[in-house]
């Protein structure tokens, strides 16, 4: 399965954040690391679509300060596969590319 750029970035953010991969944190990670400023809704649309495609799963996890439970995302095996495939195909495409 081929990934869109934002899907790719969101999945990487999910991996990087591990147990803290919830909506607002993912959005912050995108801004902090990738320099991508996206709206709350865009992040969530991407998360929901990844879930529909079976690339991610999610669980309700109680917030540390006893706040409302948060939905924390993780990659499914299919998600890992897609991510690795994307990385490999990207690397192949880059092979031999030289700026003229």
């Amino acid at each position, binding site marked *: 399965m081929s990934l869109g750029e934002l899907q790719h970035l969101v999945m990487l953010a999910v991996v990087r954040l591990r147990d803290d991969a919830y909506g*607002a944190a993912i959005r912050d990670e995108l801004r902090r690391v990738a320099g991508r400023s996206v709206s709350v809704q*865009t992040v969530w649309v991407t998360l929901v*679509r990844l*879930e529909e495609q079976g690339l991610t799963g999610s669980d309700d996890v109680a917030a540390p300060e006893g706040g409302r439970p948060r939905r924390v995302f993780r990659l499914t095996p299919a998600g890992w596969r897609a991510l690795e495939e994307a990385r490999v195909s990207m690397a192949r495409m880059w092979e031999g590319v030289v700026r003229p």
Partner: protein
Amino acid sequence: MTRAHDAPPAARAVFRRLLPGARGREVLRDLDREYAAVRERRSRAGADVWYVAQLLRPDTWRLAFALRRLARAAASAGTLPAARGDVRGFRSDGGRAWLSGLSLDLRLAWRMLLKSPGLTVVGVLGIAIGTALGVGAFVVLTGLVYPKLPLDEGERVVALTMLDAESGSAERQLVHEFVTWREELRSVEHVAAATMGMRGLVTGDAPAMGVRAAEMTASAFRVARVQPLIGRYLLPEDEHEAAPRVVVIGYELWQSRFEGDPAVVGRTVLVGGVPHDVVGVMPPGFAMPREQELWTPLRVDPGQYARGAGPILYVFGRLAPGVTRERAQAELTVLGRRAAAAFPETDAHLRPLVLPYTYPLDGIEDRGDLWNAAMMQLILSLLLIAIAVNVAVLVYARTAMRRSEIAVRVALGASRRRIITQLFIEALALSSVGAALGLAIAHTALEQFGALTAARGESAFWVDYGLQPRSVLFAAALAVLSACIVGVVPALKATGRRVQSDLRGLSGATARLGRGWTALIVVQVGVAVTVLPPALSQGYRDIRTADVRPTFAAHEFLTADLAVATPLDPGMDGVAHRAAAAARLALRLSELERRLEAEPALAGVTFEGDAVSGGARVELENASGGAVFATPDAQLTGVAPDYFEVLDVPLMAGRGLTTVDAGADAGTIAGETARAPGVGVVVNEAFVRQLLDGGNALGRRLRFVPPPESGAWSDEHVAAEAGPWHEVVGVVPNLHASSFDSTYATPSVYYAVTPELQTATLLVRVRGDDVDAFAPRLREIASTLDPDLRIDRVANLARLPNTRFLAMVAILLQLIFGIVVLLSAAGVHALMSVTVTRRRREIGVRAALGAQPHRLLMSVFSRAGAQLAFGALVGAALAAALLQGSGLGLIRNAGFVGLVVGVMMLAGLIAATGPALRGLRIHPMEALRDE
């Protein structure tokens, strides 16, 4: 601190509905956090706009669909049994087809809006203005009629009042009734009473300040169910005559006057010159009964007063559990009948009423007031309908031009319903953008207005001008209504039986000029000429009167409002209190004048009483000694005898006022001391010009008649209440004139007063350029005289800002009327250009058959001219009746009628010219071939 759920509630409710399930709630929380962050960076209004704009983002809607898909998938897989609620409102499949049709229509509508930007801008602006006025009125009026008290079960807090059935006004001296109700009423709990007024507050060494205070029974705090922030609130024991004097203060006063001192409880302060111990601080937002910030116990002893006498009390309570307002009213009526039987002389005509808490405080006393509010709403909503009709005319004209397109679509199989839906959605897109803009305008304007009234301490604690779901709903309803007028009516007309003939005539055959078009043009011109001149006239009048400025050397003067806080001692009724206050003010004012005259920096000191206007009538004596009713609009101003000298205003004729003219009292005029018989008064130039037709004023006699309490003037009232005759002894130039029209001034009468007033405006003339530098010295002198002497609004007379806001509002209104004129002109232009365009080929054919061009043009223009003239004539007749009936005057406003007629005629004739000339240029062969 910004709380997340401060986000606009209506938009938040839409989000909640849009984004279902646990994920939806989490998105909502993320948005709340983002809203809080935006609010840290921008203003509240900016953050609100940001939040509402999120609703319009495509990814919001994509997310809504994605969440629903997910919920459905989970439900069908059986993994989410609770997901049923997540997908309510969405049909399994038909919804999608419907939605895709809708999105097609929306895209088409969007394209049409972009295609005719002129029509779009005019339509959007028109509907925005109409919506802003409608929503503004709706928010204010629903706030009045359906108030929401921000108290626990606030809707169960009620006011208990007495209506005087004879005069139709409220009876407010309710000491005896209050005691009876408190002891006997079962259906209303904790019956409470309060009096309100300004009191001087002195804390430590700081100068006295006036605060909005209430003497209130302890039960009022139990009605409110609000716990004190610090210390305690008032208790029934505090109401005993021998109890120590205590005071409870509000949060804002605690912050501003006591710097939020946590040890404030136990401090002693002077309230109205009497030492009181602070026993508690109420939390923010508590301001019962209305906008009060300080509370002392109300001590009522009915033994001191006769029935119907005593202080003015506002009585309220909380409905007992399970009791309806109707049941409470029934019990109160029984008590009222019993009182009427026991005291027929005083109580027979009194009717006790249970009303929503805010009604008496907002001046709503009976059904008549509610009716007025409803009428007001109706009139403002009608304005939107008038605007919508104009936009509809424009759209209709365009739809008529699109007939061929519609006919083709019908031929290709589109149903009538489909086409009407599409035209409706086009109109809805237009009106929605207009309504959203109008909502934003209304929201911003109301917020500004709310901030202004709050800053002036005039805002009641329950008033909330924020964007409520109901105002958004109202705007949405207005948008749909406008869309119906703008879209559906023209669509029905355009898709009617004639579509088939339009299809046949697709290549451009002559469509007959229907009578419908003539009628539309006549109505359009007629309505514009009827409605707009009175509106313009009123607007112009408002502008002229809104910004009235001094014509004398105002920049050399400092002005200040003076009043003395006088304690309301038990046993003192309203009249005695006023007399005590007046006597104290007189004393202080004389001392203050003496002190100020010794100041080397000052060139003069004088004062004005409160100007009385709009209520009292001035009557002139005619040659035979009878009275001629002159005007209700003259302003009566009490001034110190040396007023004109200090102002350095030269007399135009006669003499100025003297201390003799300030003679002995002879009753009161509208709350001010009236002059004794025979003393002189001075009038201004406008009085001579407007009321005496420029004739000789000296020696003429006039008298004042105070307004009747019921508001209805009668000969009996005039005979009983008219003051003595006064001779005009001098004429002065207009001291104030409109900054927009220097010849416009209010007719004024000046009479001499002694300082026996409730409040006075001090005017001091300062030597040198730095007038403002004297302000601190003025406050200092005043505070050393008497700590209870309130000195407010010290300002340079040339810079008093109070009229500028009114002027802005008046100009804005006039601009709106102007836009409506242009909109109407655009409507006439569109209609006329369609009718003449539809005759273009007829013109071409007639030219081909040898008709003279000038005769053809004559025929076009005489027809157009006749339609326009007929409309203008009908409109002018109605406008004349309206102007005369409303008292605006026909002669004075003939110019406005002429202006609107001229604009409409011009628009119509210009619209006829283009198509007519184009018709003449059609090649005869082409015209004949088409036939």
